[in-house]
C-alpha cells in the first residue's frame, strides 16, 4: 500500500477524531470539513474522480456550510457550561470499540478472499453519465423526488411556529 494512501487516511481519521473530541462546536465543524476533504482525496486516490469531486461539492461545499449555519442558529457556538460528553459516554465508547473490533477482525480474517485487482479501473465521466441516463435512470428519478421531498420537508419542519397557532 502506497505512502500517499496512508497520509490521506491519516488526514481523514485525524480530522474525524478532532471533530468528535474538540470542545468548541464550531471547531468540530471545521475539523469535520478536514475529514470530508480527506475522504474526497481518498476517493481520488482510489481512481474514482467523479465520486471524489461530488464529495467535495456536496460535503465540503454544502453539508459543512449547513452544519455551521445550524451551529450558529442554535446556541452551539457558545462554550458548553458542563461537559461536552453525555452522562452515558462510557457505554457509547465501549459499544464503538466493540464494533471496531468486530469489523477489524472480520476484515483481517477474510483478507485472502478479498479481490485485489492491480490495474486501476477507469471511470470517465462520459460513461458515468451514460450509465445514469441508461440503466440507472429509475434510481436517478427517485433520488430527484427524494431530494425535492426532503428539501420541502426540511423547510416545513424548520418554519417558525406562529404564536397562538396550534
Amino acid at each position, binding site marked *: 500500500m502506497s505512502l500517499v*494512501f496512508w497520509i490521506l487516511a491519516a488526514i*481523514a*481519521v485525524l480530522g*474525524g*477524531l478532532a*471533530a*468528535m473530541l474538540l470542545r468548541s462546536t464550531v471547531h*468540530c465543524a471545521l475539523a*469535520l470539513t478536514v475529514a470530508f476533504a480527506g475522504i474526497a482525496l*481518498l476517493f481520488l486516490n*482510489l*481512481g*474514482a474522480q*467523479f*465520486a471524489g469531486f*461530488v*464529495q467535495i461539492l*456536496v*460535503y465540503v461545499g454544502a453539508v459543512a456550510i449547513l*452544519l455551521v449555519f*445550524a*451551529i450558529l*442558529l*442554535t*446556541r*452551539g457556538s457558545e462554550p*458548553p457550561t458542563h461537559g*461536552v*460528553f*453525555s*452522562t*452515558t*459516554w462510557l457505554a*457509547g*465508547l465501549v459499544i*464503538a*470499540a466493540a464494533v*471496531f473490533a468486530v469489523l*477489524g477482525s472480520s*476484515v*483481517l480474517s477474510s483478507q485472502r478472499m*478479498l*479481490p*485485489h*485487482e492491480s490495474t*486501476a*479501473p477507469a*471511470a470517465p465521466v462520459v*460513461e*458515468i453519465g451514460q*450509465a445514469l441516463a441508461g440503466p440507472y435512470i429509475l*434510481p436517478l428519478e427517485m*433520488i430527484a423526488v*427524494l431530494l425535492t421531498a*426532503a*428539501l420541502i420537508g*426540511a*423547510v416545513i*419542519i*424548520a418554519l417558525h411556529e406562529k404564536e397562538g397557532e396550534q
Partner: protein
Amino acid sequence: MTPLAASLLVAALMFSIGLAGALTRRNAILVLVGIELMLNAANLNLIAFWRYSPHPEALTGVMFAIFSIAVAAAEAAVGLGLVIAIYRHYKTTDLDQINRLKG
C-alpha cells in the same frame, strides 16, 4: 496487508469514530456529525470494493456511492431542520435535557 483490506480498515476506523461520537456527544448537531462520518466511511467501502473488484467497468460501486451521497445530503438537511425546530422549542440542543417528544 492487501490494499483493499487497508481501505476497509480505515473505513472501519472512521465508522467507529463516528459511532463513538454519535453515542457520546451531548450536542444534537454533533450527533449528526457523527452520523455523517459513518455514512462517509460506508462510501469509502463502496469505492474501495469498486476499485479492487474484477469487474469495475460495471460502475456499480461508484453509482452506489453517488446515490448514497445524495441520500446523505437529504438526511443532513432534514436532520438539521429537526434540530433547529427542537432548539426553538426547548432553547437547548443538549440531548441530556431533551427527554420528551411531546411539545
